[in-house]
């Protein structure tokens, strides 16, 4: 066993240039200095509100964008533009929208078979067909439907096709970008269980991106919380859920709608004032200070960096609570 993590992201930055008007160009810091690791067979949950950069982290890490700065190591090897094609086989992605992420002109067999074609993972036509049938059954679909088109499947089934496509190349790591948020509750549970079963069976590591904290808490062994392009708190899932110390995480967790009327009546919500500031016009210092109850002058000066609180629990705050 190697002792380095499977995925090691160091100081990842992803800036976009946005035209404010004809002349002015602004820099949008979608991901600003983010570091984390994911171990073999582990799930790291990544949560945050829309626009906080969680999807961009996933995409920059897979080099679907060209990162502005920072390094990504896969199994100890630095990933560069030259060797990324080699590592695509090990790192796959499942997208949020099962409707737009499948080509409507391809049959299920072609969609699942395409990665096999690209990476030349079969010798004969019969082998290809067999592999496709295997993958399709692995994710709980009927292989008799291989010649159907995407629109003939329901949302949950489409998401399964997306998972089968990701699994086709035997990846060791999958970025799951909001894979269940477009699905109905009863179907959500089916897909979550499929992800879990695949992890048990194949030992795949996940970066599980979602805004639904109940789902993330269920899936992940560790959770990272993002706010305006930065990780503000990261740690073991139970620690983050039950003993959050960053004021933002605390309000995020207190805002989860609990499917339990008694608990909902007893609980005190911490209501944040105002909206998320525009990432084009970020406040100096801590990005959360404009909505934070505990903000002091110190927070306006320099942005706090992640400090260890023990047991792998890190927080970026000058006034950690609790």
């Amino acid at each position, binding site marked *: 066993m190697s002792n380095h993590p499977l995925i090691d992201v160091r100081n990842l930055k992803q800036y976009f240039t946005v035209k404010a008007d004809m002349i002015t160009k602004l820099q949008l810091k979608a991901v600003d200095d983010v570091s984390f690791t994911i171990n073999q067979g582990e799930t790291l949950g990544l949560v945050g*509100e*829309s626009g906080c950069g969680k999807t961009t982290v996933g995409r920059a890490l897979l080099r679907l964008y060209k990162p502005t700065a920072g390094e990504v190591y896969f199994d100890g090897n630095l990933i560069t533009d030259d060797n990324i094609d080699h590592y695509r086989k090990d790192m796959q992605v499942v997208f949020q929208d099962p409707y737009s992420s499948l080509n409507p002109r391809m049959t299920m067999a072609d969609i699942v078979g395409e990665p096999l074609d690209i990476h030349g993972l079969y010798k004969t036509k019969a082998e290809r067909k067999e592999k496709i049938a295997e993958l399709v059954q692995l994710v709980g679909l009927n292989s008799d439907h291989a010649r159907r088109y995407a629109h003939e499947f*329901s949302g*949950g*089934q489409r998401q399964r096709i997306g998972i089968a496509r990701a699994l086709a190349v035997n990846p060791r790591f999958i970025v799951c970008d909001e894979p269940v948020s477009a699905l*109905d*509750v*009863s*179907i*959500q*549970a*089916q897909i*979550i*269980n499929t992800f*879990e079963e695949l992890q048990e069976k194949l030992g795949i590591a996940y970066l599980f991106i979602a*805004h639904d*904290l*109940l*789902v993330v*808490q*269920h899936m992940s062994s560790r959770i990272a919380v993002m706010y305006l392009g930065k990780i503000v708190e990261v740690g073991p*899932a*139970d620690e983050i*859920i*039950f003993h959050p110390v960053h004021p933002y995480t605390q*309000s*995020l967790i*207190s*805002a*989860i*709608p*609990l*499917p*339990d*009327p*008694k*608990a*909902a009546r007893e609980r005190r*919500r911490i*209501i*944040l004032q105002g*909206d*998320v500031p525009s990432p084009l016009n970020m406040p100096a210092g801590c990005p959360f200070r404009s909505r934070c109850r505990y903000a002091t002058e110190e927070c306006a000066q320099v942005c706090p960096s992640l400090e260890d609180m023990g047991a792998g629990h890190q927080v970026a705050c000058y006034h950690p609570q609790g």
Partner: protein
Amino acid sequence: MSETTTLLQVNDLHTSFFTNSGEVKAINGISFSLDRGKILGIVGESGSGKSVTAYSLLRILTDPGRVTAGQVLFNGEDILTYSTQKMHSFRGSRISMIFQDPMTSLNPVYTIGNQLREAIRIHTDRTREQVHARALEMLTLVGVNEPEKRLKQYPHELSGGMRQRVMIAMALACEPDILIADEPTTALDVTIQAQILELMQELQHKLGMAIIMITHDLGVIADICDEIIVMYAGRVCERGTADEIFYNPCHEYTKGLIRSIPTFGSTHEKLTPIAGNPVDLLKLPSGCAFASRCDRAMKICLSDPPEEIRVNENHIAACWVNVKNVYDEAKEGQDQ
């Protein structure tokens, strides 16, 4: 007696969409009542008919949708028999609605003030100054900061949460008796969702209107509703107080829904999903629509639609398994 508390009474409502591929029965005979000043939640998955219910109540169904049978009694009067003209003045002043998507339900080419004043002008005969004052008052009420400035802004200049507040202000401007909220927080982030839910509860206390809250999120429902209706394939599965539905669910579908969401804290316990896929509304079965996905389905479930039975005074369920349970219990009681 009943007239003083029951505001809205829906009796055996049926709504269908007459499409080229046949009649889609979106609502198949639902009945419920809403009391003054209560929050009623309607929960169900996509295609269960919860939004169509709201559209039917307000008569804003678009072609080819039509209410085919039933009554909607508002203060004892059937609004389905109202003329188009009468409906125009009724809508917005007595019952108003906010929609899921605050991005698309405001007109992008008019200012917030323009749209808000229009809503007030149509339903009241206030002067220009009074209309303006009322618009300001409403924006302040829903917690929009700098209301004067906002009135002059266009929808795209406001964030999602702000836009939803403007929608709520517009809906409440004429002091309706009922506010229908169709997935009002689904498009919003968790912390903004908490703000909006808090605001709705606060306004409900202050203004005393009744709210019909339509959502697929069991968490939102548990948070703010007094009474809950669970819908599946255009029928009411179960109806009762929030505590009854969550702690004593009697319909197999409700039980399945509650089992399939991760609960706070219970990490790494496997979820129990509901098997199969939602039913095709073009081919509704003659029995219970949920029977094909139900583990405890019996012969009768496939042939006869379940009857609504009263579990207790706060709870009604339409499930044959539940009927059987009650029967078995009664029999056991007799034997002893």
